């Protein structure tokens, strides 16, 4: 049974055209009826009959539609609100189509109340009877009114759990109704890892985990929370989250100099302002003011001016596009409103008029951007401070008909303003006297309007974003749309309570973090159980913590952190994105711009540069390859393996344990221990030819090509099957192997497959070549630029195979090589003995213990848990 599955209010499929359709009406009814609005009646036929539609007339209605329309008049006459829910309530017990069943019952049964032919059957009627109580309860539940100011709801207190954390008290109701049994608190090790990654974007060290596990005091968790919130890495982690919402992107730099496109040069100063502000717990309302109007409120403070980098985003493919995106995204980010729809027409779902849109635009119309010189650097191409200022205080804004910039309505210049339906007034802009000019004060006015306690959306939207990032699921799933076309929260009272708490704490994010992470809901185990899962698969009621993949930045930073290689220095100019695998700074400091993003991060779904209100998490094989093959993962694995080796006194069990604790923050289970030990020991498997050896000098070059060779002697009759050579990492091009007799006659040839891979390459002979005991031959391969090298005396050769190495040779490319240098170049043959066993000239190397340990570390990097918050 899925009693508690949340049915979504469905927007789709109103079969009517624009002039006549009222999808907003259907939407309003859907919102009113919530999960009781069945898909079967989510249809225009609910209110309308098919028929000829005349321009500018409504689609013809059926009896129910007419009745709903008439209800409006009755209510209006009595001076009562006449929204769709009011109208429906007024007529719900009537029987519009006269089939003997009331409107309400028909709708709940999924039948059309305006169609006398469509009637519910007995079974459906029985179900409705049962549902009626739940429907009444639903109507009486806490209303979701995102456009009305937040009123702090009382915390629901049940007698048996009076001391519960307020968040848990709010959640308990839904859990009880759905008969969900919330999971117990997670193990301490899981908890500290979850919390540390969540608050700092980095995993805890093994020592931190151990300390926390040992500390049984009741304050241990609270102390941990305080420590993490106070760490400078907190600002980087949560700064990056807000960089998503505020659409941070670096400058792509295509156009050189001061020309500005797709963000601004030196915009990283805004990034630093974000990180610093978050670390200082600067109140959110103050942050909004500084980002929108830092140049007006503190015109002479360069530190604050950095905040106006917010206004520079996407400046400017065209001024038109810049203004459009600024208006759209300011409302998406701070208000959760899709105001952009009103650029061309009045909003379809929310009461945003087209003039509202252009009045918001008028707020921004006067401003421009410039780059101020910074101390010590006069050339603003090299460094500078990107900032906003009002360049044209008299700039006029007109409504653009149908959003077309070629078609402004010049009859009515528009004053700055905001959508009126949000209920509180736009403060009159006060112009600000600056040194040499004047600023209109319009942006300050907008900021003040946004942070006014009566603004219903600012706090709700911010709290929802913060909640989303703590839990991986949002209270309002449509994080940028709190309007009627968005999705309503299942826990509206909780959201309102948190919003009130946020504002009353002085807009303190740290207060909100502390509140959320100290709830039981946040600390629950993430393991599922069948019963709960059957009731609430999506965890809509927070009976557990949903395991989720960590963000791209966390994947990369964790690799570095665990190896002790992460450079924790903060701030500064963006680092070239191509250096992501070799420069060990935190990921947020690398260039992140259109067409200039670190591949390692984009593979793990890094933020989109033009907007990203919520990351989209994919799981694709390319991520596996990045963690298994990237030089970064390889290097960090080798580093950690060396450290573990040193700390373990070569005890393999200790090595496994240390690896688990460092990388996954927990001990290995018995079964894991067993598997990993077997892996480290390698089961004494016989060394295979393709294991090695690895040349000590793998990538030597003299700047010209060679023919490099091994001379060998057959000591037992053999079939020669294939030729091998070790391809240097920088070596490219075609490779052909040749077998020569000692007098320089070419006997056989084999071509290697073209590959970009380095390491041992094998080319089969077209047919096995038989050789007799005591024959002496040369095998050579052309080298185009780079080759491997070792002294013969320092190389281990296979002395028991059918063929044995005599000496190395070199010479002119594609010719029989005659030179000798006491060196070997890792050119090899594969021979078969009488028992069909294969052998080569070099002694095959089993991976050393150090190599196996590095492999084990790499394996743990690739463990699901490594990229998961549990």
């Amino acid at each position, binding site marked *: 049974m899925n009693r508690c599955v949340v049915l979504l209010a469905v927007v789709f499929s109103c079969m009517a055209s624009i002039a006549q359709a009222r999808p907003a009406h259907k939407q309003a009814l859907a919102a009113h009826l919530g999960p009781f609005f069945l898909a079967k009646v989510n249809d225009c036929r609910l209110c309308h009959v098919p028929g000829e*539609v005349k321009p500018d007339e409504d689609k013809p209605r059926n009896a129910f539609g007419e009745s709903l329309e008439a209800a409006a008049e009755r209510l209006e006459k009595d001076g009562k609100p006449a929204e769709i829910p009011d109208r429906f309530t007024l007529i719900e017990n009537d029987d519009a189509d006269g089939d003997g069943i009331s409107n309400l019952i028909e709708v709940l049964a999924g039948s059309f109340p305006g169609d006398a032919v469509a009637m519910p059957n007995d079974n459906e009627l029985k179900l409705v009877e049962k549902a009626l109580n739940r429907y009444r309860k639903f109507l009486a539940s806490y209303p979701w009114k995102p456009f009305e100011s937040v009123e702090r709801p009382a915390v629901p207190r049940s007698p048996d759990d009076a001391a519960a954390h307020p968040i848990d008290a709010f959640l308990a109701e839904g859990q009880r109704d759905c008969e969900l049994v919330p999971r117990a608190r997670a193990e301490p090790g899981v908890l500290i890892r979850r919390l540390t990654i969540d608050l700092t974007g980095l995993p805890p060290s093994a020592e931190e985990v151990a300390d926390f596990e040992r500390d049984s005091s009741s304050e241990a968790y609270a102390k941990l929370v305080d420590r993490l919130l106070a760490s400078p890495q907190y600002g980087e982690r949560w700064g990056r989250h807000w960089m998503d919402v505020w659409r941070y992107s670096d400058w792509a730099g295509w156009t050189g100099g001061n020309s500005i496109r797709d963000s601004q040069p030196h915009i990283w100063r805004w990034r630093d302002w974000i990180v610093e502000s978050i670390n200082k717990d600067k109140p959110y309302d103050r942050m909004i003011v500084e980002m929108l109007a830092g140049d007006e409120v503190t015109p002479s403070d360069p530190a604050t001016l950095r905040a106006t980098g917010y206004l520079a985003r996407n400046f400017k493919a065209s001024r038109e596009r810049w203004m459009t995106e600024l208006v759209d995204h300011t409302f998406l980010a701070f208000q959760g409103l899709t105001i952009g729809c009103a650029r061309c027409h009045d909003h379809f779902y929310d009461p945003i008029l087209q003039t509202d849109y252009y009045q918001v635009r008028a707020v921004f119309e006067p401003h421009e951007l410039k780059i101020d010189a910074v101390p010590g650097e006069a050339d603003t191409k090299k460094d500078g401070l990107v900032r906003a200022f009002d360049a044209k205080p008299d700039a006029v804004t007109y409504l653009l008909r149908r959003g077309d910039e070629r078609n402004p309505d010049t009859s009515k210049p528009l004053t700055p303003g905001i959508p009126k339906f949000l209920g509180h007034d736009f403060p009159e802009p006060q112009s600000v006297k600056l040194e040499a000019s004047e600023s209109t004060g319009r942006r300050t006015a907008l900021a003040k309007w946004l942070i006014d306690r009566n603004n219903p959306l600012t706090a709700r939207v911010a709290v929802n974003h913060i909640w989303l990032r703590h839990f991986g699921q949002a209270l309002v799933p449509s994080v940028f749309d709190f309007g009627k076309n968005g999705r309503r929260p299942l826990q509206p009272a909780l959201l309102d309570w948190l919003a009130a708490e946020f504002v009353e704490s002085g807009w303190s994010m740290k207060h909100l973090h502390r509140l959320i992470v100290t709830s039981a809901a946040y600390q629950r185990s993430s393991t599922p159980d069948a019963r709960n899962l059957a009731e609430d698969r999506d965890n809509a009621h927070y009976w557990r913590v949903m395991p989720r993949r960590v963000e791209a930045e966390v994947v990369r930073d964790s690799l570095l952190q665990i190896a002790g290689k992460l450079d924790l220095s903060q701030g500064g100019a963006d680092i070239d994105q191509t250096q992501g695998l070799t420069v060990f700074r935190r990921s947020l400091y690398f260039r992140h711009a259109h067409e200039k993003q670190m591949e390692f991060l984009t593979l793990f779904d890094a933020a989109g540069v033009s907007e990203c209100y919520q990351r989209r998490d994919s799981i694709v094989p390319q991520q596996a390859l*990045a963690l298994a093959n990237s030089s970064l993962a390889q290097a960090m694995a080798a580093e950690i393996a060396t450290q573990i080796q040193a700390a373990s006194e070569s005890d393999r069990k200790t090595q496994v344990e240390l690896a688990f604790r460092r990388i996954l923050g927990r001990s290995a289970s018995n079964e894991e221990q067993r598997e990993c030990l077997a892996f480290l020991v390698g089961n004494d498997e016989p060394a295979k030819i393709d294991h090695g050896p690895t040349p000590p000098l793998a990538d030597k070059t003299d700047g010209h090509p060679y023919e490099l060779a091994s001379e060998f002697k057959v000591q037992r009759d053999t079939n020669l099957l294939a030729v091998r050579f070790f391809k240097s990492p920088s070596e490219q091009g075609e490779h052909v192997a040749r077998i020569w007799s000692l007098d320089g006659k070419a006997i056989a040839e084999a071509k290697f497959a*073209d590959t970009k891979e*380095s390491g041992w390459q094998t080319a089969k002979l077209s047919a096995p070549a038989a050789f007799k005991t005591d024959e002496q031959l040369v095998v050579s391969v052309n080298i185009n630029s780079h080759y491997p090298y070792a002294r013969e005396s320092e190389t281990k050769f296979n002395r028991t195979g059918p063929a044995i190495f005599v000496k190395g040779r070199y010479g002119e490319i594609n010719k029989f090589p005659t030179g000798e240098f006491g060196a070997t170049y890792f050119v090899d043959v594969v021979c078969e003995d009488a028992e069909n066993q294969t052998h080569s000239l070099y002694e095959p190397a089993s991976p050393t213990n150090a190599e196996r340990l590095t492999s084990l570390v790499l394996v743990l990097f690739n463990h699901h*848990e490594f990229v998961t918050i549990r």
Partner: protein
Amino acid sequence: MTTPHFSRRHFLADTGLGFTGIALGSLLARDGIVRGDELATGIESGPHQPARAKNVIWIFLCGGVSHLESWDPKPELNKYAGKSISDTPYADVEKKGTKEVVEGNPNHGNRKTLMALNCGYKQYGKSGLLAADWWQHTAAMADELAVVRSVWTSDNDHGAMLQFHTGRHVREGQYPTVGAWACYGLGAMTDDLPEYVVLGTPPGDCCGGQWAHGAAYLGPEHAGVRLNLDGDTPLPFGKRAAGKSGSTQAAEFELIAKLNRLSGVEYPDDPQLQARIKSYELAFKMQTAVPEIVGLKNETEATQKLYGMDRPECASFAKSCLTARRLVERGVRFVQLYHGGGGGGDWDSHAKIQENHSRLSSQVDQPIAGLLQDLKQRGMLKDTIVVWATEFGRSPGAEGDGRDHHPQAFSVWLAGGGIQGGTVHGQTDEIGYHAVENRHYVTDIHATVLHQLGLDPRRLEVPGRKRLEIDFGKPIREIIA
């Protein structure tokens, strides 16, 4: 009561099948065991109905291709060009059709002045298919095509790209795409490549982004996997570290699989974990399989020419089409081939449609025709459905020298896989404004494709996930051979 979804995964974990559990799962799938109802009733034996096709190549042109200048040319437009619709015999056309379009953006639409066709047209093939000159190569394959001229959608903006793949309006968020359903229903036929591969650039985030080949609640393991054919690294980080042998890495990956499966005991129902386990199995094999697939060296010059590899304007898409065939050959179930993706799509020709469509069609026409011919001559067309689609048509009325979005009617064609070639199904009115006969919402295309694959869309349902009537669509019987 048992909890069905749980049981199968429990089964794998509890019986200690470990690594082989997954292999068993894919073996079952390869044997034609179909999921869908499995979750409710246990593993079902046999597909829903006999399959006529095994693979799909789904070509999607982003931005809205003019139906008028492709598969539904309207001579009347030339006759009444420059006239307002109300001054033609078709004055009432706009009002006639059923009005299903939710015009979220009325800036689009309302183009009243008819525009002449921007290219010529003629009849092709034995079936006499009327098609535009811009598509002459593909049209020459007319007798393989079933053109549906009466498709409609309900979003008049480019969110229709997502809608075309999920059947849901972009505002409703993420839903499983047709490719994900196909793979979910049938499972993989290959172990070394993803079952669902995506080539080309997907729509921008405005219009669905990677959701357009996503799996939503079916779990990320059924989402499309992108391969990038443009650079020289189709598979980033696809090379083993220097000196690491294949067998060493195989041992590493085997241990990863073992350890991940051990986590599965605690998280038996975690779709992310399932997806990760699968992604590692694939990743290892893709290191060799992908370079082999995208290296076209083994293809003869004649084949490469057939696709147009020798013509600079279409070389890129030719490579995609040829790679699509190679992927299908190696058992990839569903290949989604985007053209002109990013943002709202390249085909979005509000201005200069003449320049835009002639340029873009020359990039894709020969490669698509080459793909059809190649599949045919290799005997692969009978098992492979090729779909040609876009998110909506373009308006009969002019928008300057371009055409506007037109969700009221557009054309899609299908070929191969038991589809009746040489068919035209459905009809628009004389000026191509409304689909007036045998109208089909986009999910009817899904249903047709799934039907040919042996799946009944109605039985593709996951407990707790409500699907609407309109999600399922109905197979278009008239174009099935």
